[in-house]
């Protein structure tokens, strides 16, 4: 037990304490609030806002789509399909990063293969507002690992919806819609929200995909951290990286606390 505590303490504790400390220090080591004040103004605030917006978009949209996808699989009769989707989701949910970037460029880039197909039928998505390398492009790519993650998280909850509840509702004359409105959705809600919170965190923390896809042109908090580490920070703002990191820690902690609460609430019905 002791080796574990020491390892976790050093491996996780020391970097976190160092981040918190340096977020309030100037480069020369004097106490200051200027890093934190930079964080809530101008370009760094913009990065944070973009990150929050991107995370919101890529948690709500895949969150909703994921429920439908998972439901269509849970209710299918094919055991083979269920097993295939379970494996595929577990694998795809871990697919973020550099490889994902490149296969998406190969498919949807300006000279990509799918783009080529669409051009063949005289649709050019790039002429109709589609850009793989902007904010929505990043969101489009994130969907690739967020959707499977939602399917993974929500499937057990959907499996916990008891057949007897639906039968009880039907016996009392409830329509399909009323069953979902008054029984299905309220029971699933904590699980759905919990799943979306997890997706939010996963998207907020992601760096590699956005960085390699946009080469840093989309202003996101993690990309700004990467820039400061690569030595691109303006003089006098050397410690801003620590402040952004601290901000991200705070956002992620809050997200995970609510995730924990949602999980606890969800387990009340779905045992």
């Amino acid at each position: 037990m002791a080796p574990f505590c020491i390892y976790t303490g050093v491996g996780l504790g020391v970097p976190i304490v160092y981040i918190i400390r340096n977020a309030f220090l100037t480069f020369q080591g004097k106490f200051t609030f200027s890093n934190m004040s930079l964080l809530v103004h101008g370009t760094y605030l913009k990065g944070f806002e973009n990150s929050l917006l991107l995370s919101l978009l890529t948690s709500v949209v895949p969150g909703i789509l994921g429920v439908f996808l998972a439901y269509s699989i849970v209710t299918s009769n094919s055991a083979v399909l269920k097993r295939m989707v379970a494996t595929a989701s577990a694998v795809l949910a871990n697919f973020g990063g550099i490889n994902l970037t490149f296969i998406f460029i190969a498919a949807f880039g300006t000279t990509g293969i799918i783009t080529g197909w669409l051009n063949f039928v005289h649709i050019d998505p790039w002429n109709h507002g589609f850009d793989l390398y902007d904010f929505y492009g990043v969101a489009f790519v994130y969907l690739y690992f967020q959707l499977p993650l939602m399917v993974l998280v929500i499937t057990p909850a959907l499996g916990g919806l008891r057949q007897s509840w639906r039968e009880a509702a039907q016996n009392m004359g409830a329509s399909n819609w009323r069953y979902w409105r008054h029984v299905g959705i309220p029971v699933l809600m904590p699980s759905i929200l919990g799943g979306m919170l997890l997706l939010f965190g996963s998207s907020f923390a992601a760096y590699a995909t956005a960085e390699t896809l946009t080469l840093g042109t989309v202003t996101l908090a993690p990309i700004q951290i990467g820039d400061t580490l690569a030595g691109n920070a303006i003089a006098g703002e050397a410690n801003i990286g620590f402040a952004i990191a601290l901000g991200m820690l705070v956002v992620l902690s809050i997200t995970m606390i609510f995730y924990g609460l949602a999980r606890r609430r969800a387990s009340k019905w779905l045992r």
Partner: protein
Amino acid sequence: MASIGTTALVIEATDGSLEVDNRRPRRKKFRTWRLIVMVLAAAYFLAPLYAGLKFALQNDSGHFSFWAFQTLPSSQGFSAAFFLSMRLAIFTAVVELLLMVPTAIFVHLRLPKLRPMMDFVTILPIVVPPIVLIVGVLGSAPLWLKSSPYLLSVFYVVLAMPFVYRSLDAGLTAIDLRTLVEASRSLGGSWIRTLVSVIMPNLRAALLSATALTLALVFGEYTMANLDGWTTMPVWIAQFQQSDAHVTLAAAMALLIGTWLLLSLIVAADRSQSRRRRRRAGTP
């Protein structure tokens, strides 16, 4: 499904034909809806994979060829990056297992009250993503460690912890650890012997999936390696893109397929484990 059918029959018999008329078309519509969802999802998930593979299987003039895969091993810097990743992966997996196996067993055996706390501690690395961790690491690590690539391994151990602990925890829950240990101990086995010849063989599936997860994590990790300035596999792929896009895609696809195989292995291992748990629950 069978019980829905039964309910429908009951309603049909009591409420008359109106219900029947409502019921049939709705179920049909439901099936089309499901088909559409699945086809769209399959298209979205398969298209990039198909494009990646097709692009990797093309030479520079756009014809089908294994050229990119053949050139890959001899490409500038590939073998260095591959072996660096390999070394880091092995080192990480060894440290990870040495650290987490005894800890997980100890918690299960002696301190079951600590299990909720362990769940919490091991979820922490999810709150501290690589991009945040590396900021603190690069600032606080001592110089002798910072000049070595194994600095990355030290923190990959932390990043892999939640997954590894989860899988060991599941594995330990599936076996009757206490009885096994007591039997081994009362037959005169030492702690080491108990661990190696009694517990470990029973944890095979969990150990396998923990190792596979660690390998997949190390081979895919770009953020920390890139910002620490080490050219591991993913970093090499990103850099080589300027030289040859087809070879880059071949490397990316090889890595994807490798990860896919590793992770499928885990899912298979988990399944055999849960079968076992069911069997255990079934026998008195």
